[in-house]
């Protein structure tokens, strides 16, 4: 089959006038988050002098880079019409795999094996472990046709249980400094996890916008039946989104371990709430077919700034979850209003 490419030049369409470009910007979900962020920032810089300092801002980014990176992956899955509830567990599992691989050993009462592998290899193993969890998710959804919500809910339990079981509830510590540097170090003034985030966000964003499979992902999430009957490789693309989601959750999970210098079985517990919230706040539609990586990253930053605000305003940390939940509802409301207007 060939495509006729010897087409005559067709006249370009008239450029959109400025007003309509402006309206398009206003209607983008990302815009409302930016406005929300600026408002929050303005309020915070008034009430706390500590907020608007480069070190605090970079800290916010560093502490939330893992969630943002996992949100990149979950964005792929949700845009394709699926959902992954197992990201928190996957993060813990990947972190544990990397921790065991890189640990110099001899710290826990219950002796886990430790291999003292080079940090980058440990990192790769962690990511691979995440990708493996994603592959299982994908196969469950595509081949066994389990509803994504149930398949990944099951994997949430299985993978978390695996982490707790393997460690008997103990922590893994004693990492070489080259490894912890990945979470704690800087590249110039920029924290290394933030560098990871920027690079990965660009890669995933470009993938969605310019790779053939990126468009397939939007098409499948938009209408899977039509996509199938158009002859698109639906099964493979869907599995790929879960694998990438697992791998990106893996990156996030390893970064958490490197940043905290410890792998604990309860690590990233309940993170699926934050990760999915980041994507949804950023305008990724849970019904599929709509959303951007940029929005998801902004969503993660908004959650981070909010949590930071609670700390700076001396709200007890016990209240954080309630606020995050509130933000999800608020963003859903904004999304609803915007859709009604258009």
């Amino acid at each position: 089959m060939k495509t006729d490419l010897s087409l005559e030049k067709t006249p370009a369409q008239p450029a959109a006038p400025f007003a309509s470009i402006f309206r398009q910007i206003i209607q983008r979900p990302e815009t409302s988050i930016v406005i929300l962020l600026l408002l929050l920032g303005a309020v915070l810089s008034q009430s706390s002098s500590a907020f608007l300092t480069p070190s605090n801002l970079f800290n916010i980014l560093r502490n939330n880079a893992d969630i943002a990176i996992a949100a990149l992956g979950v964005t792929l899955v949700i845009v394709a019409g699926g959902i992954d509830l197992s990201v928190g567990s996957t993060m813990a599992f990947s972190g544990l795999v990397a921790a065991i691989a890189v640990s110099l050993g001899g710290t826990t009462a219950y002796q886990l094996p430790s291999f003292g592998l080079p940090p980058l290899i440990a990192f790769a193993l962690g990511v691979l472990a995440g990708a493996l969890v994603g592959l299982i998710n994908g196969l469950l959804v595509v081949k066994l046709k389990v509803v994504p919500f149930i398949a990944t809910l099951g994997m949430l339990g299985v993978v978390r249980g695996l982490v707790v079981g393997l460690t008997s509830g103990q922590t893994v510590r004693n990492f070489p400094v080259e490894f912890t540097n990945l979470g704690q170090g800087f590249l110039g003034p920029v924290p290394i996890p933030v560098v990871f985030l920027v690079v990965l966000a660009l890669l995933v964003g470009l993938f969605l916008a310019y790779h053939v499979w990126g468009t397939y992902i939007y098409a499948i999430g938009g209408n899977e039946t039509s996509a199938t009957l158009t002859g698109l490789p639906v099964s493979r693309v869907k599995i790929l989104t879960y694998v990438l989601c697992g791998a990106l959750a893996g990156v996030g999970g390893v970064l958490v371990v490197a940043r905290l210098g410890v792998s604990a079985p309860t690590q990233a517990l309940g993170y699926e709430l934050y990760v999915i919230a980041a994507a949804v706040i950023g305008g990724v539609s849970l019904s599929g077919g709509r959303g951007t990586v940029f929005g998801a990253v902004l969503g993660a930053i908004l959650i981070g700034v909010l949590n930071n605000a609670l700390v700076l305003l001396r709200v007890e940390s016990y209240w954080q979850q309630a606020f995050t939940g509130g933000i999800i509802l608020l963003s859903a409301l904004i999304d609803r209003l915007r859709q009604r207007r258009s």
Partner: protein
Amino acid sequence: MSKLLEIRGICKRFGATQALKDVDFDVDRGEVVGLLGENGAGKSTLIKILAGVHAKDAGEIFIDGTPASIHTPADAQRLGIAVIYQELNLTPNQTVAENVFLHHMQRQPGLLGKLGLIDRRRREHDTLALFEQLGIHGLDPNRKVGELSVAFQQLTEIAKALAFDARLIVMDEPTSALPDEEVQHLFEIVRRLRARGLGVVFVSHRLNEVRAICDRVVVLRDGHNAGGMPIAEATDDKIISLMVGRAIENLYPKRPAEPGSVVLEVEGLTRRGVIEDVSFSVRAGEVVGLAGLVGSGRTEVARAIFGADPLTRGTVKLEGRPVRIRSPQEALRLGIGYLPEDRKVQGLILGMSVRHNLALTVLRQLAFGGQIVDWSRVDAVALAHAQEVHLRPLRVDLPVNALSGGNQQKVVLGKWLAAQLKVLILDEPTRGIDVGAKAEIHALIDELAHRGMAIILISSELPEVLAMSDRVLVMCEGRLAGELSREEATQERVLALASGKK
């Protein structure tokens, strides 16, 4: 005495589009009025204002001569207006009786009823009584609605309307999903309703049906009253020119085929319980019609060839070579395309732009190294194909859900045009499409055949199959009942084969 329903000077605007402007419409007791117009002419808007889904901007509605205010669907029901939409409004997992009395449940007598307990036996009894009024006997009121045929689901909707004493029933394209003999049955029921003094509004694209059942027609065009007349005066030409605003020269532009070599050959195609031993071949440049009643296996044959459903048995040959097609993906690679019967659910990605939809089949060919999409090339190719199918407006940046039904179907057709196919299977390509776009799509089909594509045309509209096909295959109960040449194929012979008569 004043009429049952009178509508005066209704206006409705959606954003920049004036959907209805000064529209008058009325229905009397015991009258069936055909509401006609192309897609986008304002029929659905008018219906939805009656149903309380949309609020009118201006104008008045009178029921029995008294001004009526309809703000919600509940208001409409209270006034005795029932609307039966094309996409039926039933809950498939509940029983017929539960659906019929969804809004007016029979309660137990006494205290139990006050607590909200339902009298099931009475509900079943009342349901049966309603169906008997419609002339239907022996329907099990405890069957789940989802298990019933579309025709019976429609009856359930009508019974539901009678359950709240509806006096005006609006039917939005009720026949579009019905096989021919069921259409006759529906007409029978409409006549019963008319005899009981109900008013009926009948929306349809099929002029012969309108003429068979309506007393009068009203035509809308671009949100205005274009005209109306008693049925005795309504000829096809008159109605079409009112609908389109001009005369359509030729609804079925078909040039005689110059068939080339055999492109597609299927033998013994079988899918257990669905299709049985279907064999035929299609030549290049030939349009082969696939006729038959709804449920006779036409769509299933198409889906099996296209790899959308698995085969139990049978072989498919493409240009003489045996091929195994296990997925639509493989079919596309081999040059076989399938335009599905429901464009919104199966053919389009509604939220995406025209550009994306047109380019999906060839995205890989338009990408650097088959990986990185060249969007400027996609734009050029999409625009070229949009021009080829006469898309209006000629813009590829619009989301497809902003287009009319006819233009949406042109996008699906354009998508397969882009893929440079050898075989194209069209399943109900003009269902629910207005006359103007229909003629354009017919012209496109003819053009594609002329360029050497092998085309299989599935349609429930017999005039379309007969006029557009070089040969007609007729299916009956999953088997091929016969083959007729263009000269032999008459409505009577096709129907006889389709209904299993020899």
